[in-house]
């Protein structure tokens, strides 16, 4: 712990370069623009190569500059970090503000046995700070120092809390709570397709494929245009279906590959009040969330999950609004493709007196459907009718199809909407074909809102909104008295409990 500015190891330049590239690729607009530009201007392979080399050189130069300007000091109780090429930023990160510390090992650091230590802070001006290319021992030392510091600070509160929770006694050894097999991860990849954004990038490329495809078909001695002109509707429909299925299959493969890369060999540990998840095939990721910082438990089940009788569980700490989307993903702990009983067990591990199966849910008023009909289905049907007015064959079919689809969708949503309480916990339910539940302890509520139009007032209905640090949960059109009861339960729990919501 020197009191001088320390630079990172030079190998950190690789990390900054990769991170810069990731940021660039994440702005899909840039990638799409680049691809479209490349296809429109008809660059030769040589020209493209020159531009790519130029881009790589610029990236490396930028990363080198960033590396030279990056330095940190570790003081007792806080980090001081100096970074930035043009804007000289000084970030002060007190240990108490660090919400999440994770240690990642990208595959390009494995030969050197180096890691990246990521820390992010809670609060209104939150930033993620990453110290790259530290040795594993140093990273764990820093992690331990931060953990010790925070433990000492929260000793009193933590004792009171574990006494109240009356649940799992903190074991001296980290306990393994959950593992996921490759099959589970593949299921998750199939059920949650992460590859759709590639569609946007692929479209201009597909447009280019037109001529080479034609040439291929001609080379095979088939006369495509003749075939298509004489083929029956059935054959054409069959071909179209085949293309769509092929595309979906390709997307699914990509999604499964992505899931396996990120979630392979997943393990969930519980160690001294903190949940830790390690996963990853090439890059090894580790995310930690303190048990006390979990705001909501999310039970997420898509329609494909429903078929496989699986669900995803997410432990959500605060939402850090300013951090980029995929960095946020790493802060929540996602447990993919688990069973219902595993969810209940893990929920009970988090909330000792919470029994998910015994929560009584009440649904949402039928007025929700009426509202949907008046404000969505009817206008959409009318619009469809107007648009289809000139086409003879579709004139009646289109609005009917639109009406049935939208009405059906609204009915499915209405069936799923609801709210329930179980002891000190509140669960909000929603979904479409699959189901989604958000479970939270009443005392975690940050703010409570009740909305009621004059129309609803006469019918004794209201919309309840509970603001948590991780998200806002809205339950529309429930019985007014029920809404008040839940709101008052949350308020009373927040106000009277001596517990910190963190």
């Amino acid at each position, binding site marked *: 712990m020197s009191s001088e500015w320390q630079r990172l190891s030079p190998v950190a330049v690789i990390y900054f370069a990769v991170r810069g590239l990731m940021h660039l690729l994440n702005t899909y607009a840039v990638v799409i623009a680049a691809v479209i530009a490349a296809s429109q201007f008809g660059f030769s392979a040589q020209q493209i190569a020159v531009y790519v080399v130029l881009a790589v050189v610029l990236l490396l130069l930028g990363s080198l500059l960033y590396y030279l300007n990056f330095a940190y000091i570790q003081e007792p109780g806080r980090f001081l970090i100096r970074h930035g090429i043009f804007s000289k930023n000084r970030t002060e990160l007190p240990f108490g503000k660090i919400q999440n510390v994770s240690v990642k090992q990208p595959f390009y650091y494995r030969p050197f046995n180096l890691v990246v230590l990521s820390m992010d802070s*809670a609060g*209104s001006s939150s930033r993620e700070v990453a110290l790259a290319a530290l040795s594993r021992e140093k990273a764990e030392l820093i992690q331990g120092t931060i953990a010790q510091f925070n433990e000492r600070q929260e000793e009193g509160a933590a004792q009171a809390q574990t006494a109240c929770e009356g649940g799992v006694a903190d074991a001296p050894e980290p306990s393994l709570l959950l593992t996921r097999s490759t099959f589970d991860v593949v299921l998750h990849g199939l059920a949650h397709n992460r590859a759709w954004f590639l569609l946007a990038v692929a479209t201009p490329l597909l447009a280019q494929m037109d001529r080479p495809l034609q040439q291929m078909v001609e080379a095979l001695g088939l006369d495509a245009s003749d075939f298509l002109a004489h083929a029956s509707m059935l054959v054409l429909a069959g071909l179209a279906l085949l293309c769509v299925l092929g595309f979906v299959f390709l997307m699914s493969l990509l999604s499964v590959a992505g899931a396996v890369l990120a979630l392979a060999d997943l393990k969930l540990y519980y160690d001294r009040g903190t949940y830790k998840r390690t996963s990853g095939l090439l890059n090894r990721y580790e995310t930690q969330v303190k048990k006390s910082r979990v705001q909501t438990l999310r039970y997420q089940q898509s329609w494909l999950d429903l078929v496989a009788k699986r669900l995803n569980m997410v432990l959500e700490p*605060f*939402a850090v*609004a300013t951090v980029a989307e995929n960095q946020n993903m790493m802060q929540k702990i996602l447990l993919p493709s688990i069973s219902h009983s595993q969810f209940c067990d893990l929920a009970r591990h988090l909330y000792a007196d919470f029994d998910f199966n015994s929560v009584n849910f009440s649904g949402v008023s039928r007025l929700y459907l009426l509202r949907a009909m008046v404000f969505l289905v009817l206008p959409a049907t009318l619009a469809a009718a107007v648009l289809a007015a000139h086409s003879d064959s579709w004139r009646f079919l289109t609005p009917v199809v639109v009406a049935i689809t939208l009405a059906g969708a609204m009915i499915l949503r209405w069936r799923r909407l609801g709210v329930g309480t179980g002891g000190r916990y509140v669960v909000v339910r929603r979904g479409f074909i699959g189901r989604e539940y958000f479970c939270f302890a009443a005392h975690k*509520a*940050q*703010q*409570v*809102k*009740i*909305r*009621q*139009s*004059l129309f609803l*007032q006469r019918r004794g209905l*209201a919309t309840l909104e509970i*603001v*948590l*640090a991780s998200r*806002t949960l809205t339950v529309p059109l429930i019985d*007014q008295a029920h809404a*008040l009861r839940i*709101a008052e339960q949350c*308020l009373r729990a*927040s*106000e*009277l*409990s*001596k517990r*910190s*919501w963190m």
Partner: protein
Amino acid sequence: MINCFSEGDAQALAPRYTWLCCIQVALLCLVIGVAAIVVDAVSTELDLHSVAGLLWLLAPILLLLLVFAAVSARAKRYSLSEHHMSFYSGVLFQQVAVQPFTRLQHIEITRGPLERALGLATLKLFSAGGAQHTLAIPGLPMADAEQLRGAILGSKGLTDEQ
């Protein structure tokens, strides 16, 4: 009225706040009106008839907006209790937001130029729920705003947490 959290003793905002809202609406309409006239003048010849026509069109809309602004301003009320602050708003769509003090991150008093001119201020209560869920109580005389802030900071709700 939503009859929960005992709205009976809720405080209305300062009467000057109604004026503030009306002035804001009027200013907005003025800006839009001027912009419309400029666009009209630039696209065709500036013609007194079209300007008059535009004004005739805007006047009833302006009136409607002013009435609505005044009614909404009068409908806003707040209520301070030992443990929380409630804020009531809305005319056709009524809403009550309750902020418990134990979940306060920090308090701010802000004053825009119009507010300063009218001697008013807005009290903002921040929680960890995010920027869009800041409980903002506008239309408070400056002294009241400071008194409320002091009362909240010294309230039982906060001191108990410490």
